[in-house]
């Protein structure tokens, strides 16, 4: 059920990203897809985050006729890493989604430039750095509503659900 909900949320986020956000200059650097993916990964863990990231990246690359796999790779890594953070130290921390979005926005931009450079395509690091403050601000603003929605759709698991193994001591 979670997988279906995640697929729907990320699909709608992709449509919003491609059809609406990029039409406005002010919002062009925002990535609602990345924010939605991180929110889901934070709430559902690393494996879920990595799979969701891979599928979302593939969808974006397909829709934009970009080089297949580039966005998938970056989003898989982002989903896995933030999912891992969610499974460990980020539990019930208020700042976790904001910190995740800020750090991943930064790393995603540099990852994109690095991949373009490695593929021998134009990799304007200056333009990426120039767009970074706007992207950071907009993604952080999007985090509040997107994470609130994700929390309603993917409520954090109860303690009993989380504990899979008990080691008896003594």
């Amino acid at each position: 059920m979670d997988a279906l909900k995640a697929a729907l949320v990320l699909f709608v986020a992709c449509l919003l990203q491609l059809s609406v956000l990029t039409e406005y200059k002010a919002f062009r650097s925002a990535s609602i897809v990345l924010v939605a993916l991180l929110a889901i990964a934070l709430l559902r863990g690393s494996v879920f985050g990595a799979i969701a990231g891979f599928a979302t990246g593939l969808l974006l690359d397909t829709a934009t006729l970009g080089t297949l796999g580039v966005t998938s790779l970056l989003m898989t890594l982002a989903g896995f890493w933030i999912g891992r953070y969610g499974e460990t130290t980020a539990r019930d921390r208020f700042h976790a989604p904001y910190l995740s979005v800020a750090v991943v926005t930064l790393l995603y931009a540099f990852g994109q430039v690095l991949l373009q450079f490695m593929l021998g395509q134009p990799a304007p690091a200056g333009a990426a750095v120039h767009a970074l403050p706007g992207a950071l601000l907009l993604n952080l603003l999007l985090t509040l509503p997107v994470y609130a929605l994700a929390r309603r759709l993917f409520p954090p698991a109860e303690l009993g659900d989380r504990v899979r193994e008990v080691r008896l001591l003594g």
Partner: protein
Amino acid sequence: MGCLVLASLVLITVSFRSSALDGVQGVGATVLRPFETAADRVTRPFRDTVGWFQGLVNAKNQNAKLRARVAALEQEQIRYASALEENVQLREDLNYHAPPSVADFGKVDAEVVANAQSAIEDTITIWAGSSNGVANGDVVVEPTGNPDGTGALIGTVTHVTPDVSRVTLLTDNESAVTATDLTNTNVIGAIRPGSGSSLILDRVPKQPAVRVGDTIITAGSLGQGPLKSLYPRGIPIGTVTGRSNSDANLFQNIRVQPFVDLSSIESVIVLTPKKTG
């Protein structure tokens, strides 16, 4: 996780080095198209409302300026009509063969289905592909940019599938177009992306005078060398908004504002070469 990273790397390699996945990608893009159109339709009223209020704020201010501009353009139109008539007559008399112009191309109308503009690349996806006669390298213009209906330049087609194509915009880092000044055709340079939405007319020596307000158009093929320009001559690109010189630079620094707002394109015209013979 490892499997997914590996799968991504395999996809990158296959997609980058061959066209084996183009068909699959084209089918995927075609399948996604109705959803993108639906999203566009659903959000259109909200965007129109925002646009309407923005327009209202500027309308009064623009009205007076536009009235003055219309009066000036009417005068100019009369002069141009006379010059055009003379030009046609002289061409006939001299049996002059001009480089290809927009009239020598077929036109394919296409709707924009996805907008992938970012700091790294500026591309859009359009709903027309090889089944409509679109091919790699075809020139893309805006439908309503020019009085003669040719439209202002947007970019070129860089990836084609049967139903959808990717267009690389003028503001993309890979883009470069040979351009000239409409009022001084001795000025030949290359239009390259500038900062933000602006462009730069590069490689223009300091000597030919370029004035602020001049119109920049595609230069087309200059008739020299084996490689012809992809762009027919005379497609409007933008207006010169500033120029500067520095002792350290051999060329002028000319800033050009494109006629088209490349961030919000809804439909385009692809110029396809007419088949001969």
